[in-house]
């Protein structure tokens, strides 16, 4: 077991290293001067040369890469080429927005996805089952950016209503504005994950409901509610929890489009602007953060299995 854990951590480090090389090179191979892009055409040659020197852009790639790794090792994420502020400051301001968006999306997904998945499995081939299945396929087919656009446009055209779009609100000091700001985008984001969680819960439940121990429980004369909740649900939730975990780690960096549409100052909007403006320090840091979250949560899930399911033994 210890050997397995050590090997998995080594593997995670290797993966993150490949990601770091990839993002470093991908951002640079295009050519063109990011500084001119960021400073505008009116920037003086002296100013451009100065920024080049500040960001070590004239060094060969391997030197730049080594410097980047060295700085990352002491948690120095550098300065934005556009605003000149420290990446870590921006990051601290933006992480809570994306994190809250993720939590709310997770909330909707669990509250809606799991119960409806259960109903769909228990009443297989009934009207509610068909409704859930059709909703699930719709949820997976309808583009989130389109729903988001409509969610903003329809109230704006008909009632002149718009959620707060130009500031970052806090759930603690102004809860109502905060809910108005993050409620709609989290619901839109949850459409897709709700749909896949419903389907997964349904298929897992169907499989478990056919198991011998469920038949035994019924034969003992337990009431159906106890059979479904205590015996079936518990055993079908393991893969559901896994997928939820992976979905959420992906959401942290993947809400690029939704944050863009609702003008939320989160990580997704941060990295989108950084990619457009070739802001190397920002783009690299955010990519490494999201990749690390994804790799570590996969690892955590795999290790968690051992505790959830005693039959699994890694060697």
């Amino acid at each position, binding site marked *: 077991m210890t050997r397995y854990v050590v090997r998995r951590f080594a593997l995670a480090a290797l993966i993150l290293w490949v990601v770091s090389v990839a993002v470093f090179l991908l951002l640079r191979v295009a050519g063109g001067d990011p500084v001119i892009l960021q400073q505008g055409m009116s920037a003086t040659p002296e100013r451009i040369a100065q920024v080049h020197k500040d960001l070590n852009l004239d060094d060969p790639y391997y030197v730049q890469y080594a410097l980047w790794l060295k700085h990352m090792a002491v948690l120095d994420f550098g300065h934005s080429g556009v605003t000149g502020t420290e990446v870590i400051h921006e990051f601290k301001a933006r992480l809570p927005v994306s994190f809250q968006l993720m939590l709310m999306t997770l909330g909707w997904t669990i509250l809606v996805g799991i119960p409806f998945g259960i109903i769909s499995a228990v009443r297989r081939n009934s009207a509610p089952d068909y409704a859930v299945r059709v909703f699930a396929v719709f949820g997976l*087919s309808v*583009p989130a*950016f389109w729903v988001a656009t409509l969610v903003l446009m329809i109230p704006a055209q008909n009632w002149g209503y718009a959620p707060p779009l130009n500031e970052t609100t806090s759930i603690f000091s102004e809860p109502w504005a905060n809910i108005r700001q993050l409620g709609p985008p989290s619901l839109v984001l949850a459409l897709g994950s709700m749909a896949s969680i419903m389907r997964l819960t349904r298929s897992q439940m169907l499989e478990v409901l056919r198991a011998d121990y469920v038949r035994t429980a019924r034969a003992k004369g337990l009431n159906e509610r106890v059979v479904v909740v205590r015996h079936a649900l518990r055993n079908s939730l393991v893969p559901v929890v896994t997928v939820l975990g992976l979905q959420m780690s992906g959401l942290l960096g993947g809400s690029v*489009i939704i944050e863009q549409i609702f003008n939320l100052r989160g990580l997704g909007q941060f990295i989108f602007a950084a*990619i457009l403006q*070739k802001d190397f320090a920002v783009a690299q840091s955010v990519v490494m953060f999201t990749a690390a979250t994804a790799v570590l949560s996969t690892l955590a899930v795999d290790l968690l299995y051992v505790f959830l399911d005693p039959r699994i033994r890694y060697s």
Partner: protein
Amino acid sequence: MSEARRVPLSGAPRFELYARPGRLVTALHTLRANPLGAVGAGVILLMLLVAVFAPLLARYGINQYAGVPSQGPSAHNWFGTDRFGQDIYSRVIYGARISFQVGVLSVLIGVLTGLVVGSASGYFGGWIDTVIQRFVDAAIAFPQLILLLIIVRTLGPSMRNVIIVIAIGIIPSTTRVIRGAALAQKNQLYVEAARSVGASDIRIVARHVIPNVVPVAIVIVTTLLGAAILAESALSFLGLGIPPPNPSWGVDISTSRNSFPINVWAALFPGIAISLTVLGFNFFGDTLRDVLDPRLRGGR
């Protein structure tokens, strides 16, 4: 060795001859039993026809001034007009061409590459497998949309680059799935038989392993076509896909968002077109998986 397990020395799995018609019959039967799959196939066919016959169906040119800007549906402009006074109906019709071109080409390139790399990875194993799979791990850990955005920012937005980028996005997960299927084929008797008559590794992969993982690939292709069309529209929506004024559905939704006065119709119709197409592929893909993947049969 018992009679039943004897394998023809040519290495060709003879049972295929008998399995094929059975599969077709099952497929037709399943389509009838599962009307959603038939609906999906119908929608795909409809959208394909729209794409092919776009010039006949469209009522105006894609960049033609066709009426007062930002209007709702009318007899002249069935879906209304956008902020430039272009006919939304005609643009949605032509948009089907772009969606299908990008979808089909990117999925073909992506899945064919994934098929070759994944089969090789699963069949050869060893260090080849290890190296390939570590790259796949890294690509999967990389947030997908961000990867696409970075590459397309590097290459520049154009139809060709969108196809390349979406294909690149498809390769890692396809490689992983195909590798698993190839791994299962590797220890089959017919592969051993082929090897025993002196077939080279390349020949075994090309003639025996790849043909047997094709059913898995077909299911992947159907599901990915919908995903690729979604990806194209999302990239175009963000301004990093098909460059405007081309009639991409994503471009049109993005245009509608920035127009004043607000005209919901301009966003509504292109989005319905995307949803319908993707829905078709998802319905059809689900049914296809039920037919081709016996493990899941009876589960739903």
